Structures are given as C-alpha cells and as structure tokens.
C-alpha cells in the first residue's frame, strides 16, 4: 500500500483510478462508435447506402451513453483535480476545441441524416465521417502531447501526429471488430477486411508509444527497466504481443459459417486498449501533469472528494446495471432502427 499511497491520503488515488476507469471506458465504448463513423468514410452512397445505414443503426441506441463517459472523465478531472485541470486543458486548448467540433458534428449528423431533406443527407453523411475522424485524430494528438509533457518541439509534434494516426487506426479497428460482431453477410466480410487492414497500424502505434514513453523521463525508464520491475512487468508486453498474434490468426479465419468467434476481435481490441492504458497509467502514476504535478498536489479537499466518492460508489453499480440492460435489449445482429 505504501507504494501506492506514499504516506498520503487514499482519496486522490481512488479518484485517479476512477478517472482512469472512465477514460478507458470512454476509449473503448466511444472508440467503437467513433470507429464505425470513421469506417463509413470507406462506404460510398448508392448501393452501399444500405451498409452505411446498417453500420449507423448498430451504434444508434448506444452512442449517447458512450459519450457520457467523456463527460464523466473531464468532470472528474475538473472536480477531483482542480489544480491540474487548468494546466492540462489550457495546454491542450486548440486540440480540445477541434475535438469538440468533431464530436458536435458527428453527434448531430447522426440525427440529422435520418431526418433532413433527402438532398442534404449526403452532407450529413460527410459530416458524420469527418466529425468522427477529426475527434479521433484530436484525441490521439492530445495523447501524444500528454506523453511528451506538452512540449511542442518538432520531434514531439511528429510523435503526436503519429499517436493521432494510431488512435484513429485503433478506433477504426475496434469499430470494425464491433461490426464483425453486429453485422452479417457482405457487411461482416467487409468489416473483417477493415480489421485486417488496421491491425498493423495499431501495432505500430503500440510500439511507438512503448518506446517513447520510457525515454521521456528517467523516472519512467526506471519504473520499467530496473529490477525487479523488468521481470515483474514482462508479462504485459508479452500478453500484448500474444493478443496481436491471436487477432491476426482469427481475422484470417473470419468470417466463419456458424459465426463462432465473431466476438473474438472485439474482445481482443478491448484487451489491447486495456493493456495499453494500464501501461500508460503505470508510467505516469502518481503524476497527473507529467513530471510536474502529482495527484495529491492537484486534488480537491478530502471532504469534497469523500462526498463524491460515496455517491460514485452508490451510483456506478446502477449505471453498470442499466447499461448492461440496454446492451442486452439490443443484443444480436443490428437491425433497422425505428421509432415505432
């Protein structure tokens, strides 16, 4: 415990864990629906229109709630770490604004495309694709800037552009995996091809982040490469590599006639996101602003954290419960969405 708490209050640690959990859930959940949005860019209008509609229908009942995890994540950053939020969000001012534009565009395009004048639909389709892609790129760029400690040197910006493209590929991959699970027939076959095509880009992103992060500070380097940590942490990269191999093999075999294993790519994608996220969290803990401000220095008062912690413990299981109910109601292959 001492390693975790370093002799200080446990509440900021609990909130760092909550914040991490919401970011991870956001990246996985909105990740697949942003990914579906990105993949609509690969689908033309015309006779492909049915595919596009089915793809969007597969995320229809979920995207609102998925995006709420971002609201919770930024909310937790604001309320639990008030002395870090201005530093982090201030340093990311423009990419945040660009991401928000992307999220606005895609969120409204989702509704407008189904309701607007027929001639306008193609524009809302374009807005849906580009909004999804812009949001993904902006988030990846912010991840890169965060890792390099917000210093905008040429090399750091190049690295951030690489993480931007990698996260775009990651979202496209998890989106394709979602469509393998929820789609049928030609759409499912297409999704398998998309997943194969993006998998290697995701792997490249993992390697880049894994190489750069330890180089950013001696502290992080020591956390990974000094004994006994080198041995104790070895299972992490090994497991990650193994998942990539399994995904590669499964995607070669998909789709199967009985639709067995259609869940494997999505499960693998979630596991990859979780492992990658854990690696980053391990590297940066206990800092919330890399190498500058720890979670204890940034935290709100214990009294305020406690009142939120109690609420979160009561409400989060309920949220998990009704989220599960929603996924159960809309289980199985995605059909047409209709109000009546």
């Amino acid at each position, binding site marked *: 415990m001492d390693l975790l708490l370093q002799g200080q209050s446990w509440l900021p640690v609990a909130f760092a864990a909550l914040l991490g959990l919401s970011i991870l859930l956001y990246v996985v959940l909105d990740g697949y629906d942003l990914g579906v949005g990105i993949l609509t860019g690969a689908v033309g209008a015309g006779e492909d229109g049915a595919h596009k509609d089915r793809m969007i229908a597969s995320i229809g009942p979920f995207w609102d709630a998925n995006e709420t995890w971002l609201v919770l994540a930024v909310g937790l950053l604001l309320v639990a770490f008030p002395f870090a939020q201005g530093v982090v969000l201030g340093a990311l001012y423009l990419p945040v604004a660009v991401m928000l534009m992307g999220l606005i565009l895609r969120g409204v395009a989702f509704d407008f495309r189904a*309701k607007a004048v027929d001639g306008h639909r193609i524009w809302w389709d374009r807005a849906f694709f580009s909004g999804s892609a812009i949001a993904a790129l902006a988030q990846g760029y912010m991840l890169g800037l965060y890792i390099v400690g917000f210093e905008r040197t040429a090399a750091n910006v190049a690295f951030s552009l690489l993480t931007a493209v990698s996260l775009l590929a990651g979202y496209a991959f998890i989106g394709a995996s979602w469509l393998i699970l929820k789609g049928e027939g030609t759409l499912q076959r297409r999704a398998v091809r998309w997943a194969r095509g993006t998998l290697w880009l995701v792997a490249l992103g993992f390697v880049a982040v894994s190489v750069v992060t330890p180089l950013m500070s001696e502290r992080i380097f020591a956390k990974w490469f000094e004994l006994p940590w080198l041995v104790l942490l070895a299972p992490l990269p090994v497991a990650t590599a193994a998942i990539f191999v399994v995904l590669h093999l499964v995607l070669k075999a998909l789709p199967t006639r009985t639709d067995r294993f259609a869940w494997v790519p999505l499960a693998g994608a979630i596991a990859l996101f979780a492992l990658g996220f854990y690696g980053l969290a391990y590297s940066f803990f206990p800092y919330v602003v890399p190498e500058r401000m720890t979670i204890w220095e940034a935290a709100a008062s214990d009294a305020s954290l406690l009142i939120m912690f109690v609420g979160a413990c009561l409400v989060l299981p309920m949220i998990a419960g009704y989220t599960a109910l929603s996924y159960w*109601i809309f289980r199985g292959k995605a059909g047409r969405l209709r109000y009546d």
Partner: protein
Amino acid sequence: MMDALLLSRIQFGANITFHILFPTITIALGWVLLFFKLRFDATGDERWMDAYRFFVKVFALSFALGVVSGITMSFQFGTNWPGFMERVGNVAGPLLAYEVLTAFFLEATFLGIMLFGFRKVPNWLHTLATVLVAFGTTMSAFWILVLNSWMHTPAGYEVIDGVVHATDWWAIVFNPSMPYRLVHMLLASGLTVAFLVAGLSAWRWLRGDRSGGVVAGLRTGVFLAAALIPLQILAGDMHGLNTLEHQPAKVAAMEGNWETRGNVPLVLFALPDQEARENRFEIAIPNGASLILKHDPAGVVPGLNDFVADDGTVEHPPVAPVFWGFRIMVGVGLLMLAVSWAGAWRLWKSDEPGTVLGLALVAMTFSGWVATIAGWYVTEIGRQPWLVTGVLSTAEAVTRTAGAGMVWTSLAMYLALYVVLLAAYVGTLYHLAGKATAAATGRAAPTDPIAQGGERLAATPSA
C-alpha cells in the same frame, strides 16, 4: 483589440446560449411525451400515439444537440475558466459530479430504449424508459440550477487561503435563490415546449392536416401554456423579490434606477447611459417599481450609484443588457399570456383553432426560446462583475495560458458551427412537420422506408 477575458466571456455566452435552447425543450418535452404515452395506454386512442411519434423525433434531435453542446461547456470550464474550479471546486465539483452520475447516464441510456425499443421491450418497460428519461432531464436541471444558484447566492462555505471549502451541504444545495430559480426555469421549459408543440401543430393544421396527432398537440400545447403562464408570472415576481434581497445591484439594473430613493417609477422604455449615469428618452409609470418591489408607492428601491466605489470603480453589472433583457422577457411573457388564454377560450368553445389563432400560434412557436435566453442574460449579466457573488470575480477566473488569438480561433469556429446547426435544426423541424402533413393529407406519397434504410423516420402515422 479584445482580450482573452472578454473573448472567453463571449465564447462561453455563445456556447451556453446555444446549449440552453435544447435542454429547455427536452426537460419539459420528456414529460409531455410521457403524457401522450399514458393517455394512449389509458384510452387506446391512436391520436395520442400519433402525437407521440411526431414529437419523439423532435425530442431525439433536441437531445442530440443538447448533449454535444453540453460537452463543450464542461471542457470550457478547464480551457477558459481554470480559476473557477481552483477556487470554488470544492463546492462546484460535487454538484457537477452528481449531475453526471445521477442524471446524464440515466437519460442517455434509457433514451436508446425509449427511441428504438418500442418493439423490443414490453410496453411497461418502454413507458418506464420514458419516465426515466424525463426524470433524468429534470434531475440534471436540478443539479445545474443548484450550482448556478449557489454562484448567485453562495451559502454554506468558508474560505481558507483563498480556496472555498464546503461547511454545510444542506445550505449549499438549498441556497437562498435555488428554489425560485429552479421553479422559474422549469416553468420556462414547460412554456417553451407548450408553444413549440402548439406552434408546430398549428403550422400543420393551417396546411390542411386534420390528423388526430395535430389536434391532440394543439390542445395539449395551448392548455398547458394557459395553465403555466400565470404560475410563471407569480414565480417570476417572487424570484425578483428574492433577487432584490440578495443581489440588489441586479434589480437596480433591471429597473434602470440610478439613485436609491422612494416613489421609483416603472420604466417602460429608456436608453440607459452608463457614462452619464442616467436614462435617456425615459417613458415611465410613476411609483410603478416601488409598488412592484416594495408593494408600497413610497417604497425605497436601491439604485445603481450605491454600487460605485469611492475611487470610481463600477461594481454593478452593465446596465443596458440587463435592462433590455428584462423587458424582452416580460414582454414575451405578456404575449404568451394573451395568446394562450385567447387560444384556450377558443379551443374550449370549438374544436377548430381557426386561421387567426393558428397564425398567432405559429408566430409564437419559438417564443419560449426568446424569453428564456433574455431571462438568462438578465440573471447572468446581472451577476457581473462576479462569477461567484462576493467570492470570485469573473476576471480572476479566466485563463492565463490561452491568449486572445487562440480564443478568437475557437470562438469563430463555434459561432460558425452554431449558426449552421441552428438553421439546420429549425429547418428540419419544419421538414419533419411538412412530411408528416404530406403523409396525412395524401398529397405526396410517404417516402419508402426501405429506400431510406436503417433510419429513424417513423412511417406514416398509422390511423
């Protein structure tokens, strides 16, 4: 050249102005949809379901716009107003956290079931989903108005080393202006929706649509408006008296009253001149303001000149926007009273609204938006120069990292986007209404739902 403070204020103002349009609709429309649903469950009368199916589309569209514009605001707390959370985060934080935890997830998750689950779940679960969505929107209004009210009339806190700490959560939640502000806003939402429902239905009626859903929407909207407007006038008056007690400078600006004195007139028209500290072209009713605020023609009403420091620093809000915002709000409220009562009288006597009432309702379709925004400008600009009254000034909270150039860039992007989206939203409402009318009157074949593909256009109203 404008600085980051003014630009950040314009940006947040633009953002919240755009955002508030949509929650104002969804808060009350959720309950109106529940009403339609329950009437259908009770009577089996298809016209209620007809109305439900039309307005659920309006709800879905409004909800999506509300969600995405709301995300933007929470990020702006950090990007543009870092001082807010640094200084008062111990109070504001838990309130925002409870809003997300108890409201946002609830409404977002059950919205999926409410919109797309009609054929997938039992009817009771669909009705329950509708209840939970309506409840969720109202809960989020509750928490955000608690926080907003606390910023106006802070209570239950102490300041240690410049940082606010909570001492009494009961006093924080039930701070002096909260009950008035919450009721005033919920009624504003109800009126906005009443006129939206009546206005869109009247538009369809004028185009010859006599389907059951149109008549149900017309009657529901008009009678709801007629019932709510007197309550709103009463609530608004009490809210004003509460403001007089806790934020006298705001009331002085609303009244355009410069000197503290008795027999203060009710100014109907004026151009407040803050440089000269007087009103130009004033038209006023003698003793009016004293009567309204003190219920006594000689009652002493505070004046703006009391809020100028000895060194000449102005410590009251800018007068003209508060003064004019208040008059626009009240003016629209009086129009609402006239139209809704005349409409209720007419629809009491007859089943047909007639052309005149129909046109009046169409003209009033978005009147709730005008009144709501004008009212929010009064109360929020009226809080200046404070962000949290007496605790934190707006200037202290603004970003030091983002320069004016950056804020210009983001502001220009947001403004362009909001204009396009607002036009698209209003256009789409009329497009949906036109399509429903075309289907009901048989003037045009309903669009083939298969060709439209996995979409969310309801089919023709099943009669």
